[in-house]
C-alpha cells in the first residue's frame, strides 16, 4: 500500500509544554482519519504542522515519499496537494459565496465544474450569489467546507468541520466525505463531535499527552462488530456491590458521566441472559447491549480524574 502523507517524529514544544511528542504516522489514500481530543491538546497544532504554518521543533512532514518543507518552493508544491479548511470568520464579507468558490477553484486550478456540483450537493443554490456578510453561521460553515471540496486537493485537513451545522447538513457533509474517500482522497478531521465520526472514519485517534493513540489500541476490538458491552444508567453504588458479588468474573467500569459499563466480551449467551434478568429484577430498565461507543471511550480517556 502506498502511503501518501507521512509524519516522522514530529515534536512541538511551547516553552516547557510538550504539545506533540515524537508523532510518527502514515496516512493512506482513500482514508478518513479522525482526530479526537478535548480543546488544547494539540489537534490544531498537529494540523498547523502538517501545513507548515507552525514549523515543528523536530521531525518531518513527507508527502509522496519525497516532498518535505525544506524550501519555499517545496512548500508551494505541498500546498498544491494538501489544503486546510478556512475559518468561517475569515470570509470576505463583500464577496459572494460563489466567488469564494471560484477563488479556490482558480487557486488550485481544479475542475470548474466542481463549483456548481458542490453548490447543488450542499443545497447552497438559494444564497450562494449573495455576499457572505449576510450569511448565518451554518451557511458560512458550509461555504468553507465547499471551498475546500472545490480545491479538490489530495489531502484535506478539516478542523471542526461540523461546527454549527444541523443534523441534516451533518448528514450531507458525511455523504460528500464518503464520496471523496471513494475518489481516493485522504481526509483528516479534527473534531469533538463524536457520534458521526465513527460512521465514516477509518481510523480514529485520541490525542493525549502529545501522543496519538489509535482507538483500537485503547480499546481492543472497538472496530469489530460484536456485542462487547452492557451500558447501564443510574446504577447505584449499593446495587453495584451486589452485582459484583453475583458476577465476580465481569469487569465493571463507572464512567464520569454516570454510565456504568460492564465488559461482556468473550461471555456466552447464558451469562448475557443472566445479566439481563438481574438488571430487570433490580428495575434498572435503562440499559443496552452493544459495543463501546466513541463517547464512552472519550469519557474514559479524558474525563477520568
Amino acid at each position, binding site marked *: 500500500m502506498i502511503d501518501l502523507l507521512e509524519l516522522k517524529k514530529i515534536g512541538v514544544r511551547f516553552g516547557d509544554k510538550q504539545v506533540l511528542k515524537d508523532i510518527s504516522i502514515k496516512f493512506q489514500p482513500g482514508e478518513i482519519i479522525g482526530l479526537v481530543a478535548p480543546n488544547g491538546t494539540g489537534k490544531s497544532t498537529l494540523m498547523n504542522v502538517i*501545513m507548515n504554518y507552525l514549523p515543528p521543533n523536530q521531525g518531518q512532514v513527507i508527502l509522496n515519499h519525497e516532498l518535505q518543507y525544506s524550501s519555499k518552493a517545496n512548500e*508551494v508544491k505541498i500546498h498544491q496537494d494538501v489544503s*486546510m479548511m*478556512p475559518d468561517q470568520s*475569515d*470570509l470576505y464579507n*463583500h464577496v459572494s459565496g460563489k466567488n469564494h468558490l471560484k477563488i479556490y477553484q482558480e*487557486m*488550485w486550478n481544479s475542475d470548474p465544474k466542481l463549483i456548481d456540483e458542490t453548490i447543488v450537493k450542499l443545497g447552497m443554490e438559494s444564497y450562494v450569489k449573495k455576499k457572505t456578510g449576510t450569511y448565518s453561521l451554518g451557511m458560512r460553515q458550509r461555504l468553507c467546507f465547499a471551498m475546500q471540496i472545490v480545491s479538490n486537493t489530495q489531502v484535506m485537513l478539516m478542523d471542526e468541520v461540523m461546527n454549527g451545522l444541523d443534523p441534516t447538513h451533518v448528514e450531507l457533509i458525511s455523504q460528500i466525505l464518503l464520496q471523496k474517500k471513494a475518489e481516493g482522497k485522504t481526509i483528516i478531521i479534527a473534531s469533538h463531535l463524536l457520534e458521526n465520526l465513527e460512521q465514516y472514519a477509518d481510523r480514529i485517534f485520541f490525542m493525549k499527552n502529545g501522543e496519538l493513540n489509535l482507538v483500537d489500541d485503547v480499546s481492543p476490538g472497538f472496530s469489530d462488530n460484536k456485542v462487547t458491552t452492557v451500558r447501564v444508567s443510574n446504577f447505584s453504588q449499593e446495587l453495584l456491590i451486589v452485582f459484583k458479588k453475583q458476577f465476580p468474573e465481569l469487569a465493571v467500569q463507572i464512567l464520569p458521566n454516570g454510565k456504568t459499563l460492564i465488559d461482556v466480551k468473550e461471555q456466552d449467551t447464558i451469562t448475557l441472559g443472566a445479566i439481563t434478568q438481574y438488571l430487570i429484577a433490580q428495575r434498572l430498565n435503562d440499559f443496552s447491549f452493544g459495543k463501546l461507543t466513541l463517547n464512552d471511550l472519550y469519557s474514559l480517556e479524558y474525563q477520568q480524574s
Partner: protein
Amino acid sequence: MRSMLKTLFIIEKTNKKNIFACLIVALCIIGMVVYANSTELGNPIKEKSSESLPVKVAMNKFQIVDASEYGDGSDIYKNIVKQYYTYPKQGMALKTEQPELFIDTAIELTELRKQAFEMENYDLVAGNLPSKIENEMDSSYYKYLKEHSLELSFGSLSFYPFLAFLFSIVGSVWFVLIGIYSSNIMIDDFRHISIIKGYPIAFSKYVLAKCITSMGIVVIFIIELFICSLPLIYFKGLGQASYPVAVFNGGVMIYPIYKYIAVSIIYMIVLAIFAILLSVILNVLLKNVYLTIFVQVILVVLPILFPGLIELIPFNPFNYVNFPSVLNGESLNLAMPVALNSNAGLLYLCISIGLLMAIIKWVLSTGKLQKI
C-alpha cells in the same frame, strides 16, 4: 500567478475602499479644474502685478542717491533701481499684448538679477527677490521662448499647462497618498488568514500579485488625472504640448510639457511601487495600519525637518519623494544647498525598490502572517 491575480481581482473589484478612492480622486481633480478655471490661474497680468512691490521695498533699504552709471550709489543699489524700472515696461507689454517685448524685458530682468547675486551686500535684499535657482529657471524659460520664437500665452492655463500644474501639485503629495491608500494592504489579509495561508503560491509571488493589483488602481488614478481635466479643453482650449517648462536636473533644463508630464508619470509609478512595497513590509512588521502611516510620514518628513540629512545621505530615496520640488530645484534654496538630480533620484528609488523586494523575498515568509 495568473490565478492569484484573478482571485485578487474578484476580491478588489467589490471593495468599497477602491470605489471611494477613485471617486475622491476624481472629485479632487474636478475641484482643481473648477478652481483653475475660476481664479484665472496662470494669467500673467494678475501674477506679475504684485512682483514690483518687494523690489520697491528693497530699493528703500538704501539711501536715495544718484543711481546713474557713474553715480555714487553702490552697485547693488543701481542694480535694484534698474530692476525696478523694468516692471513698468513689462506691465505695458502685458497690457498692450506684445509678447516679444514682454519676453525681452523678462530676460533683461533675469540678467539684472543674475548680476545682483554676485554683488556686495546682496544679503540685504535677498528676501525681497526671487532665489538664484528661481531666477535661473525663469531665465532659461524666457530665453527658450525667444529662441524658438514661441508665442507667450497671455490667458490663464489651458489644458496642457494645466496638466503640468496638476501633476506638480498631485506629485508633491503622491507618495503620502499612496502610502495611506496602501497602508492596510496586508493588514486586510490578516483578517482572512486561514483562506490565504494555504494558497499553493509562494509568499513573494503573492505579494507581487497584491502589488500588481494595487498598481492597477494607481494606474486608474493616473488615468483619472487626464480624464477629469478634459473639461478644461472646452473652457480654455488645448494649449501647446510642446510649451517649455523649466526644470532642474543637475542643471537648469527646458522640458516640453509632454516630457514634464512623462517624467512625472514615471516618478509617480516608481513612487507608488515604492510606497506599496514599504507598506507591505511595515504591515507585516508592525501589524497596525496607523503605525504604518506614521512611519511612512515620518520617513518623508525627516529630511524636511533636518535638511542637513539631505546633504549627508543624498541617496536617501525619501529626498526625492516630493519630486516636483526636486524638479524645481528647491533643495538649492536650503541653508546648505544640495543639487538633487531628478534622474539620480529615479535611480535611487529603483534601487530601493529592489532592496525592498529582496527583503520581502528573503526575509518575510508566510510564517510571518499571523492572525491579529
